[in-house]
């Protein structure tokens, strides 16, 4: 029998593979189309490249959120604390990008 934590890990594993593949393929497809079209401005395609890379970057963060929620439900406060520390570092990084 699969326990809930294992099920979550399997689901997140699938999510990470899907997120990385989708992000990389989306951005690559947009770059290839732009190269084929030649010189010019393609805001839609440029957005696609950025969105693909953003998807790739967000994938591990989604996984972290899921583990955080699971740790709260299981009252594993040391893991909650560690994940909160990671969120603080990520928030500082986001602040750096936006600031």
């Amino acid at each position, binding site marked *: 029998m699969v326990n809930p934590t294992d099920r979550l890990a399997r689901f*997140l594993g699938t999510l990470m593979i899907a997120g990385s593949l989708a992000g990389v393929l989306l951005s690559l497809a947009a770059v290839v189309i732009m190269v084929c079209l030649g010189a010019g401005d393609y805001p839609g395609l440029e957005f696609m*490249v950025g969105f693909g890379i953003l998807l790739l970057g967000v994938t591990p963060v989604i996984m972290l959120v899921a583990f955080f929620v699971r740790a709260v439900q299981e009252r594993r406060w040391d893991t909650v604390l*560690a994940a909160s520390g990671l969120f603080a570092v990520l928030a500082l990084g986001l602040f750096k990008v936006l600031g």
Partner: protein
Amino acid sequence: MAPVDLLLVASGGLLAGLVGALMGVGGGIVAVPFLNLVVGVPIHSAAAAGLISTLSVSCGAAGRYLRRGGLVDIHTALHLEVSAAAGGLFGGIAVGWLRGPVVQILFAVTLVYACVHIVRSALRPGGGSTPGAVSPARTLVAFGLCLAAGVLSGLLGIGGGIVVVPVLHLVLGLPFKSATATSNFMMGLTAVPALCGFVSRGDLDLFTAAPLAAGVLLGASIGARIMPRVKTPVLKMGFALLLAAAAFEMARKGIGTW
């Protein structure tokens, strides 16, 4: 970007992913020197692209390990990752304070360390871990080394597995396969804050990063499939020589443009 450049970057990524998977190192250690020395991408942009490829490989590999179950020590990873991510954020910001030649020389030193790491793993596969209770002193050492690995990752655009895997295996006593899987899981979470510094300076060239990441992801997947059929000790020695040559060239370029 011209079609030839796109193909060159993607094939470089493919090579980096393939070799990285066969040698047990991340793609960044090959991809960053390739971009800088062969394609001529400035070192800061090459490092940012290296982090994107690290992110894609980490997500793909950690996803597979999570689905298989029992290999990733999530508890240890999340605790150590706090220091690794903080190091990554600092490294990604600090690299902006350093001139290109300084980063190139730092990278050359890291390549020499990677050479030694690969030669040692070829001569003594697996190494010797120390299972059992982990003392507070060892835990502190692990945190310190993960912080250093994070800084290195942020500075040079590599995954930091060459530091994190030995820490997990030798210092914390995790089995080698579990150490590799846990390190892969951690790399992605280190790369995200490290990238923030590069993005804020505008060093991330998406049009270089996208084909590189796709190439590395495909190469790593092929490498993982053919690894059982390849005689790795001989290959590792050859790869160590290649890395030594790249280290020499990078140091020469760095000193030349000082």
